[in-house]
């Protein structure tokens, strides 16, 4: 290699670094995709809120649904709740996972703010949350009709999040399910 060309090597390496950093500015380093994408919903056997019959993962099968992780101590869950009510009224199947909470508070919350969930799994100790890879409420999982997790959204679900991130996949999966 001509000696002069060798001297351009540092510049070339720096250019590669700069491009990487530029790309990095549009990424979010704290965003973590779920490790359970395309894997079945973890097995569980827990009581439901206000129900005597225990619930298991089989109860999630049969329709495409959203499983929403929420708790009364979670401020953002309060923010997202009205929109969840709206989604439920539109016919989207919604199941709740009441994460590390207590029954009395949770029931009062639902009475006060409305209950969009078909049922609520009472995960008192957070064991199901650990199996799911939950690290903070609110989180919402999109589960298909066979009980396989297809997507996870961390944070508040609102109009923007639903139409951009969740709805397209939800529609696709529902159509797939209907045609089967």
């Amino acid at each position, binding site marked *: 290699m001509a000696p002069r060309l060798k001297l351009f090597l540092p510049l070339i390496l720096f250019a590669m670094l700069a491009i990487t950093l530029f790309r990095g500015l549009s990424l979010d380093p704290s965003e*973590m995709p779920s*490790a359970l994408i395309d894997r079945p919903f973890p097995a569980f056997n827990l009581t439901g809120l206000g129900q005597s019959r225990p619930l298991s993962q089989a109860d999630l099968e049969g329709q495409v649904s959203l499983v929403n992780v929420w708790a009364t101590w979670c401020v953002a869950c309060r923010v997202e709740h009205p929109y969840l009510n709206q989604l439920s009224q539109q016919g989207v199947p919604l199941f709740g996972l009441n994460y590390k909470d207590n029954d009395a508070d949770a029931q009062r919350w639902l009475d006060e703010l409305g209950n969009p969930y078909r049922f609520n799994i009472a995960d008192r100790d957070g064991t199901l949350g650990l199996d799911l890879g939950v*690290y903070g409420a609110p989180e919402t999982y999109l589960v298909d009709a066979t009980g396989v997790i297809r997507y996870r959204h961390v944070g508040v679900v609102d109009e923007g999040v639903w139409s951009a991130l969740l709805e397209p996949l939800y529609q696709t999966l529902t159509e797939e399910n209907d045609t089967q």
Partner: protein
Amino acid sequence: MNRTSLLLVIAVAMFAAPALALIETYDFSDPELEVRYQSLTQELRCPKCQNQNIADSNAPISQDLRKLLHQQLEAGESDDEILDHMVARYGEFVRYRPSFGGVSIILWLAPALLLLAAFGVLLLTLRSKSRATTAGVASLSAEEQARLASLLNKVGQDS
């Protein structure tokens, strides 16, 4: 990221502020397990915090993970089994030691490769320079070579 979400993030981050040093007192049936516990809590990353391991973080999820870790150690699982268990739920992100497979292998090979490359470049550069020098010098007559040597020695003394 718009301003509201930025503020929310900062607010959450402030709640998860460090130096709360939540210290749990787990009892271990075997002191060996406690040693393993301490080293494993430093291998695992808190999924939610700003770059802390679960030993130093007081976020609720870290507490849960530490409790899980304690349970698994008492249940007799090996280090690898425990780490795989965590990765299956939270992804590779939760391990501070990059795996030896996949794309991370380059991370482990990099230092050795860089060292070899650096020494290699050094050797080649020095050898080609001294060869160029001797080749150039050889093209002079004997008298010129003697003059060159004495001139260069004078320069060498000055510096």
